[in-house]
């Protein structure tokens, strides 16, 4: 399946999202937090692209920027052949049904003043002209699809458990039959037992509705389970992107290696054998990233060139992209 190249549903080209810092008496712009600093990737129709990285590396910002929940600083985003990188928000409204989002915190992402029915119905109210009865039926269908009892439609979100709330969020995202869903750490706030349920639900729905996911997570084992390809982010940039098997078996970038070595190994005898790569120091501030490669301050294989020249992000092996000077052709 991976051999015949399918078309990219979403392609992101050099997208930057800088948040300005204003300071001083006149609130002048004195700098910027480079939360996302030039990322490029494609999400192929029907696949799940995992986006991993440590806290604060810009994963969530990247996900929101792709959906244009932010006005991006620069770059191009093409959604199903339509360029939306610089479209004003008012015109984007037409595109919204195609792309939806599942949020991290199921409590915060549901309005506590609305019933479950009203929450799931909101996208229908905004984008369809169904009658009240049709909407009610559609809501009930969606609740069935995500495994919620339809008798609970009149309840408020705070009456539900975390996993159920996340199902409400998923039902809302599905309401308009989107093609592309950004899952922004949908399982991070849930119990481990519930995590599996929600991830399996997401997989079932993908099969059922032919969805494409951008799955943002810091849980590598979960990404390994659900993703077809994985992108690794560090300090606002993608350092490596490859097929799941390739990435987990033969990572190229030193950061990916370090990240993968941090995954706990359930087998104690294997766990003793594996060597952990412990990175030194802290992540630099995204408002003041180091010169050259972003990872040069902590890289175990740092070279002189890394501190001077920013490595280009390119395909070093077939279907395996990375941004590292170790793989320069020389």
């Amino acid at each position, binding site marked *: 399946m991976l051999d015949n190249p399918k078309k990219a549903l979403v392609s992101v080209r050099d997208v930057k999202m800088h948040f300005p810092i204003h300071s001083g008496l006149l609130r002048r712009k004195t700098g910027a937090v480079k939360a996302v600093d030039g990322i490029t990737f494609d999400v192929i129709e029907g696949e799940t692209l995992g986006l991993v990285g440590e806290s604060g590396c810009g994963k969530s910002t990247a996900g929101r920027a792709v959906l244009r929940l932010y006005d991006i600083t620069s770059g191009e985003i093409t959604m199903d052949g339509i360029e939306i990188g610089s479209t004003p928000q008012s015109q984007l*409204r037409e595109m919204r049904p195609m792309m*939806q989002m599942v*949020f991290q915190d199921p409590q915060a992402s549901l309005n506590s*003043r*609305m019933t479950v029915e009203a929450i799931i119905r909101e996208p229908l109210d*905004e984008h369809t002209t169904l009658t009240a009865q049709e909407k009610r039926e559609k809501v009930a269908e969606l609740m069935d699809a995500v495994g919620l009892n339809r008798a609970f439609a009149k309840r*408020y979100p705070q009456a539900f458990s975390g996993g159920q709330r996340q199902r409400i969020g998923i039902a809302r995202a599905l309401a308009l039959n989107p093609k592309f869903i950004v899952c922004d750490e949908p399982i991070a706030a849930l119990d481990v037992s519930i995590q599996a349920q929600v991830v399996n639900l997401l997989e079932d729905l993908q099969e059922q509705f032919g969805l494409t996911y951008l799955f943002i997570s810091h849980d590598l084992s979960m990404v390994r389970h659900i993703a077809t390809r994985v992108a690794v982010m560090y300090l606002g940039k993608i350092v490596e992107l490859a097929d799941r098997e390739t990435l987990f078996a033969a990572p190229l970038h030193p950061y990916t290696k370090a990240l993968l070595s941090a995954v706990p190994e359930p087998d104690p005898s294997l766990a003793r054998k594996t060597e952990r790569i412990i990175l030194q120091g802290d992540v630099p501030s995204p408002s003041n990233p180091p010169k050259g490669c972003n990872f040069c301050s902590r890289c175990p294989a740092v070279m002189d060139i890394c501190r001077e020249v920013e490595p280009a992000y390119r395909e070093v092996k077939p279907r395996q992209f990375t941004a590292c000077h170790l793989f320069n052709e020389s």
Partner: protein
Amino acid sequence: MTDNSMDMTAKPRNQWWDVWDQFKTHKGAVFGLGFLIFITLFCLIGPSLWNVDPGKLDIRNKDVRPIYMAIFDSGAKVSWARPMGTDNLGRDIMANIMQGGRISLAVGWTAMVLALLIGTTIGVLAGYFKRLDGILMRFTDLVLALPLLPLLLVMMLLFRDPLRATFGPEQGIFILIVTGIGITSWMQTARIVRGDVMAIKEREFVLAARSIGTPARRMITRHLLPNVLSPIMVSATLGLATAIITESALSFLGLGFPSDFPTWGKILFDSVDRMTAFPERVIWPGLAISLTVLAVNYIGDGLRDALDPSIRGL
């Protein structure tokens, strides 16, 4: 009942019944509502039952004490025809309280609603639209810095006569007072609402609504306003009290309604100088003002709880 609720296709129960059920559990609010209904009916229907002209002078029957004084003092000047007594010009106090209540309640409610509308609109706009924030909040500061009484004085001088000519003496003054109080008491509401809107705007469910494509106007009505209801409700109850009291103060200064036109505040102030001899003339309007304010406060409290689904336990 339980069988019905399991079936979603059955006609859903109106959610206002849930609100009412929760409201009923707040005893103070129920008492408050009862009193407010009573005082409103007292002022509205009272005059048609108690057919006495509040402005009629009856010098022979002046300074009649309320009927209960007969219990303490057998020689007191009392009359069943004047159950609450009369004032120093022989005007019937009960009829005055009824007539005054009409004006005071009308001024209070209208001014409060006006202040609430202005305050909420400015607060929501300033909190939601960053571009408007600076200018709207500086405007709020500007109005806040204006001294209320001189402003009203100027308003009276400028607009009293044209308004009187257009709407008649009572209507004209009513509009003037309500507008005056309304446009000088919305600032607190605006500030509180702005702060709350700014906090709620950053919550994830607003981002979720944005990802759905909800336009700003429905974002405000669907997501922001229901969530800032509590502070609005509190300002509303406080605003009603302030409006009634401000109207009293204005009447006292001679800037309000004409002298032969009773309001609760005016009756109160007229009686202050002979308070020791005739305490009932202060007690009755004072009690009416404070109980109304208290009742509205309790209603607001109960309503706030009833409208919050998390307190309602749903």
